[in-house]
């Protein structure tokens, strides 16, 4: 078996999942949808993280209760061989789409702000091999690299928020509750898909993080950390730009860094901080590709993960290029995914969790004993 899973500790798995969740939460949301009803995205993000966490918690508790060590085993137990493979394929595509979206957003940011006029594929050529290398090396490498770079990434993120602080004005957040609590919750549900893939990855590699119980603790911590960080970032964005500005921005986080105080060295730090985020996006994409390959290998009983990694790495390059060249079509797909994606992702998982729990051997054994 060459699944390159190994075993990583809590700090590594937390860093890995938190980086993935933060990257997706900060850089892949749809601005026009998120800010259309006001500047309450800081509440929306908290709601999204909470909803993703609830779905994760239900699934991981079912895994722990039923004695399954990985998501694939849970799906198979709950849904049977055929439907579990279908669901696994959906999750594989979801993870690859998330990885591709991350790369696509960053490529677009680079084309707009850093390397104006450069063709996208010339930039992807730098990102994709590193993503491939991460996924190829396996879970241990991804986890440890995340642990290694976590301080750099925290400084990139928090540094951006702190350096732009002089420009924060609370009036830009008004109206403070956007268009009402109901709308905020609705947006929260739609945007839960931003945080969900990172937690889904933890379910997939649960054995590599010392089992479902540890995966649960890690997932909780990662979701809370990511939710708080993304919410803080949205609060800072909301205090820097009004909602009408934000809804027209493709890359509000980068625009935030362009507002650093003029007249000093810090005004030139935007690109440096940006490339800290690029590192986080590559780590997140590597994690998603690995999780997708691992799930695929489990679903179709492959003993070696490397062919899947190679194929999926090429696939995300294709997806990323499609996102640029067929932006109109991809925009429609993105709208569908952001509208209904969570349902598509959550329902099979919750169903499988419920059924697996009902069929769980631990429970049956306990019943027999009693």
């Amino acid at each position, binding site marked *: 078996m060459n699944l390159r899973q190994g075993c*990583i500790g809590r*700090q590594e798995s937390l860093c890995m999942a938190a980086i993935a969740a933060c990257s997706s939460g900060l850089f892949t949301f749809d601005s026009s949808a998120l800010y259309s009803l006001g500047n309450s995205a800081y509440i929306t993000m908290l709601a999204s993280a909470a909803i993703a966490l609830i779905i994760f918690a239900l699934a991981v508790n079912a895994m722990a209760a039923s004695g399954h060590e990985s998501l694939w085993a849970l799906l198979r137990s709950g849904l049977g061989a055929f439907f579990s493979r279908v669901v696994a394929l959906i999750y594989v595509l979801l993870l690859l789409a998330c990885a591709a979206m991350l790369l696509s957003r960053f490529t677009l940011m680079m084309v707009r702000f850093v390397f104006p006029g450069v063709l996208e594929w010339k930039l992807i050529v730098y990102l994709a091999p590193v993503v491939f290398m991460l996924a190829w090396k396996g879970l241990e490498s991804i986890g440890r690299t995340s642990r*290694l770079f976590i301080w750099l990434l925290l400084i990139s993120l928090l540094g951006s928020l702190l350096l732009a602080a002089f420009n924060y004005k609370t009036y830009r957040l008004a109206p403070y509750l956007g268009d009402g609590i109901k709308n905020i919750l609705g947006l929260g549900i739609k945007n839960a898909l931003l945080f969900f893939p990172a937690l889904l990855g933890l379910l997939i590699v649960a054995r590599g993080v010392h089992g479902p119980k540890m995966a649960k603790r890690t997932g909780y911590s990662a979701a809370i950390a990511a939710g708080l960080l993304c919410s803080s970032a949205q609060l800072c964005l909301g205090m820097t730009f009004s909602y009408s500005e934000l809804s027209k921005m493709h890359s509000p986080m980068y625009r935030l860094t362009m507002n650093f105080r003029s007249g000093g060295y810090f005004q030139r730090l935007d*690109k440096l901080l940006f*490339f800290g985020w690029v*590192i986080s996006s590559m*780590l997140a994409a590597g994690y998603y590709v690995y999780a997708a390959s691992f799930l695929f290998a489990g679903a179709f009983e492959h003993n070696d993960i490397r062919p899947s990694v190679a194929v999926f790495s090429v696939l995300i390059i294709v997806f990323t290029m499609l996102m640029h060249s067929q932006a109109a079509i991809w925009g429609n797909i993105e709208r569908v995914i952001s509208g209904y994606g969570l349902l598509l992702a959550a329902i099979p998982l919750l169903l499988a969790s419920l059924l697996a729990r009902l069929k769980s051997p631990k429970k049956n054994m306990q019943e027999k004993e009693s």
Partner: protein
Amino acid sequence: MKKSVFECLRFDEADDQFELLETEEGTPGFFNRWPKDEAPQTKPIEAPSSESVDENEKRLKKDFRSDINPDVLLRRFLIGGTIPALAACLNGMASRSEINDFILRQSMFKGVMQGVEKNRAKYAMEHVFAQQEAELEDDWDKIKAAVCEGRTAVFLEGDSRAVLMDTRSYEQREVGAAQNEKVIRGPQEGFVENLRTNVSLLRRIIKTDDFICEFRDAGAMNNVMLVIAYRDGVVNRKLLLEVKRRLNSINTRMILSDGTIEQLTERSSLSPLPQVLSTERPDRVAAHIMQGHVAVICDGSPTASVMPATLFTLMSTSEDAYVRRPLGTILRVVRYIGAGVSILLPGYFISLALHHQGMLSTEVISTVIASRRMVYLPIGLEMIFLLWVFQLLREAGLRVPGSIGQAMGIIGGLVLGQAAVAANMVSTVVLIFVALSGMGTFTIPDHSTQVAAEYFRLFLVIAGWLGGLLGFSAGMLALGVWLVSLKSYGLPFLSPIAPRTYSKQPAILRGNVTQHSRATDYTNPEEGLS
């Protein structure tokens, strides 16, 4: 005259130049490999020694080619005046006085072996020969290896076993200061080429009963010995077995230093970074052994290899522990900053200069433009050229002897640099960056790691040249991924940072001396943490 002219015109004479002709049999491979890729180097097992002294003498003469090899001394004598015996040793390797005083003289007392018909060798070893170290052996290869080492083998008539006694005495270097690892505060001794002496240097520091030094053959045809040193009960058994397993797999023609052993036992042979710590200092080796590491010392080599090694092991020096905490901390911080500057600064500057000029202040841009006004090399090539020149000067300074070497460095640095700027080959700004980067390299204590830094630096310069900060950050991440996946005898190279292991001592800053009560957690020692 006539004859020489005719001789010039002859074309039928054989060429009398020496030529090394191919003698291998079979069809050569496509890439000119030998048919058997890994030919076994060790000889087949020989028959044990004989009970007859004459036969043993004949065999020794034949094996050692004593007709053309006058170093071998074969001395026939009678033990106790009655029993024929043969002493075999190598001239220049064995001590004459020890043989004369404690073997031959002891043997020549009348009646020393009276009535001994069986187990003569054992009796002689116990009652006749006054030697501290003596053992019985009938393995012919071991007897020959012992003679080659400088020991004396004594054969007795009627016993197939020989008595091997340690009579080694040859010229060797005195224990002096470590040449390449100088410290201001701390022990000044360094290893020498003699294995026994090196082991004694360690034993003077580790005076415990669980300190084990296993002597064994290195696995080369030149019969070099090595020692595996560790603390039994502290070291992780799996680590020890892995070290032994890898050493057992060595089957090579010759081993001349521990460097060969390192290369034959490492897993990532293409890695610029070493996977063991190579050090000349006994105190450093002892410190690691106390912490649960394993050391391998090879005869003939004044360095020891300590495994497993992490990046932080390679970046630390023994002096860090001997000085006080604030001083040790600042030394380490400067070292890491120096290493960081050395590896990252050239690539970072190239990224900004070529792709992100807006990140530089107007003053710096103006200065760079002014300094590069007539320079014809593109800035990326200029940087690589200067890095190469710096390496050239460094190598030249190492190879040129003594006082000239220092002058070479000064002349090279000042004159060459100034001339290159005046000739518009390079600019002053790039020269300064390369010099800073070079200075940073010298803060890295381990020589192999210094060289590895050159690779990383070049890689990042090329990445920054091609892709700006995108290439630079992708390159940094790729390096990070490679580093975390590198292992040294099963231990991740970036322990205890990634993976995070239990350690009260910080990896980079100097910890408190009172925290040295436990072995390092990342080697999973048997001692445990209680």
